[in-house]
C-alpha cells in the first residue's frame, strides 16, 4: 500500500478539525472510504451544530486533486508513496 497525504483544504480543515492525514491506500475508492468513515461523523456533527439536517458527503462536496491534477481528468489512478491528495470544497466565491 502507498502512503498518501490527504489534505483538507481551506474550510474543510475547520469543518473536519484536521488539516492533513497520512493514510495507506491503493485506490481512489479506498481513499474515499477512509475519508467518509473517519471524518463523516465529524462532518455530520458539525452540520447539526449549524442547524442543517440534510445528510451530505464530504467526498461528493469536494474537488479531488492528485498532486494538483483533478482526478476526473486522469485515466487511471495508482497511488505511490508521498502522493498528495487535496480535497477542495466544491464551492467558489470571493
Amino acid at each position, binding site marked *: 500500500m502507498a502512503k498518501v497525504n490527504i489534505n483538507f483544504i481551506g474550510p474543510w480543515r475547520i469543518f473536519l478539525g484536521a488539516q492533513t492525514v497520512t493514510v495507506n491506500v491503493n485506490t481512489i475508492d479506498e481513499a474515499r472510504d477512509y475519508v467518509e468513515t473517519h471524518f463523516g461523523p465529524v462532518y455530520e456533527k458539525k452540520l447539526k451544530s449549524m442547524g442543517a439536517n440534510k445528510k451530505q458527503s464530504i467526498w461528493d462536496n469536494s*474537488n479531488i486533486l492528485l498532486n494538483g491534477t483533478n482526478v476526473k481528468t486522469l485515466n487511471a489512478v495508482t497511488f505511490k508513496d508521498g502522493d498528495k491528495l487535496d480535497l477542495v470544497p466544491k464551492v467558489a466565491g470571493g
Partner: protein
Amino acid sequence: MNGYHGKILVADLTEGTVTDEPLNEKYARDFLGSTGLAARYLYDRVDEKTDPLGPDNPLILMPGLLNGTSGPSVSRWGGATKSPYTGHYGDANAGAWFGAELKNAGYDGIILKGKSAKPVYIYIKDGVAELKDASALWGKDTYKTQEEIKKEYGDNRIQVACIGPASENLVLYGNIMSEYGHCLGRAGLGCVMGSKKVKAIAVRGKMKLPMQDAEKFREVARTAMTEVKEGFLSMIMHETGTAGWIDSAISYGDGPTKYYTAPTMEESTKISGAEQVEKYQTESTACFGCPIRCRKVLQIKEGKYLNDRVEGPEYETLMAWGAMMGLDLDMSTAVYLNELCNGYGFDTISSGASAGYAFYLYNLGVISEKDTGGLKLTWGNVDAAIELLHLIGKNQGFGAVLAGGTKRMAQKYGRPVGEAVQSKGLDFPMHDPRAYHSMGLVYATAPRGADHNKSDAYQVDGGTSHPELGLPVTDRWDDDKAESVATSQNFRALTDSLGLCHFAIIPFNLLVGMINASTGWDTAMDQLMKAGERVFQLQRALSCKLGITSKDDVLPELALRPITGGGQEGHVPNLDKMLPEYYAIRDWNKATGKPSKKRLESLGMPEIAASIGAQ
C-alpha cells in the same frame, strides 16, 4: 403597483432640488431593479460625448426588486453611470442594509444629476427627501462620515451610502461605501458622486411595501430561508467568508501573484479564512435578512496593527493588496490595508492592480525611484505598498498616476496595452483565467469590463452552480465554455436585478413564488431568465452606444503567458475558439460587436435596436 413604491427620487444638484417622479412601470417590469433597472434609466441619458465627471452624467442608484422583503439573502442593491474609470458603461452592486432601507423609506431608486457648488448630502425619511449641507463632513473618511450622520440624527438604524476622500479627490475608481466596508466598487460610481459634490445619502423609513399577497410571500420566504441556510455553499461562506477561498485559490493557481507572473503565493495561507477562524474571528454578521452571515468580525491581538473589533477583508482584497505585489502578509497588516482602502473609499481590486503593476514596472526597470517619489517597489515591500495606498487615496504624487489605473499607466510609460491586465479598461479581479478558462471569456465579454461577478463561470468550474440551471461541470481548462458562460451571465444579470446574493441558492419555484407574491405578476422561470438576458443585452448595447466594439472583446497578453508552476500547469485560455462560439450564441455582429436587431426585438427592445443601429 405591487412590489414597488412607484416613485423615484430625482436630485438635481445644480438646481439644489429634490423631486419625486413616478417609476416607469414598463422599465420595472422588463428590467426588475438594481443594475438592470438602473442601466435602462441610464441608457436614455448618456452618449459618447457625455463627460463622466460632468453634470450631464447621471448617477443612478436602485434597490433590487426583492430588497426590503423578508426573502432570504435579497439585500443587494446597485447603481449605474458612465464610468470615469473605463469611459463606458459602469455599474456596481453591494450587499448590506442600504437597499432595504431605501425601499423602507419609500423609494424605488435615486437619480443624481447636475453638480452642486458646495458639498451636500441627501437625507430621506419615510418618503420625504431633503438636501443638507455637508461642508462639515467633506474630507472625512467613510467610517467617520457614517458615524457622524447617524450621530446627528441620534438614530443608529439610519443607513448611509457615502464617499471618502478618494472620491472627493476624484480617484477614478472611487467607491460608494455603506455599512462601513460594503462598497459599490469597480467602475468609479463614488468618483461620479464626488464630482457632484454629494458626500452621502442617508435613508431611514418604515413605509410598508405594497405586496400582492404578503401572507403567501412570508410562507414561501420561510421555506426559501431553510433552503439557503442548509446549502453547502452557504455553510462554507458562513464558516469562513470569502477569505475561505484563499487556500483553494492556491491549489488551483487562481490568485494572481507578482502581477500575473508567478504561481499563487503559498504564504497567503497566513491570511486565509481558515486561519481567521482559528486565530482571529470573534463573530459573524449579516446583510439584511441573510442567514448565511458571511461577514467576519476579527480581533487582532498580535502584529503591528492591533484592532479590538474589525471586519475581516474579503478574498479579492487579500489577494489584490497581497500576492499581487508579492507581499507576505500577516493578518494584522492585511486588515490594516483593508481598513485604509475602505476609509479612503476606493476599489481594492483596481487599486491593488495599479499598485501591482507599478511593482512590476519597477522590477522590470521601466520606472525607478525618480518616478515613484523615492519608493523602492521591490516585490514584497510592505511599507512601500502602504505608502502607495495613502498616495492613491490623496491622488497625490506617484499616487496620482496609480489613481488613473493600469491602462493609463501603460500609456504613460509607453508600454504595450496588453501588459496592463484589464479588459475594456477594468482590471481583472483575483480569479486568473489561466486557472479557469471560462473566466477569460467572462472577462472579455462582460459589459463593464473584466468582471467576475457577471457570471458563475468559476463557480461552475469549481463544481457549484444552481442545480436547476443544468450547467455542465467540465474540466476547468476546457475551452467549450461559451454556452455555459452565456447562460450564467444571464442568470447573474437576473439575480443582480432581483437583489439576490450569489451565495444563496434558492430553488426556482421558491424564487418565482416570492416574486409573484410580491408583485402580483404571473411570471415563470423561463420568463425571468429571458429578463436576465434582456438586462445583459441592454448593458452590452449601452457599452456599444458608448464606444465599445468587438475589438475590445480581448484579453491582455500578459495574462496569457503560461505559468508552469503552481496550480495552473501552463494552461492558457483559447479565446479564439470560445469567442466566435459565444458571439453566435449572443447574436452579436462580428465587426461591430452590437447585438442583432432581431435579438433585441425578440427581447422587447426595438427602441434600443434602433438607437444603436443594430442590423
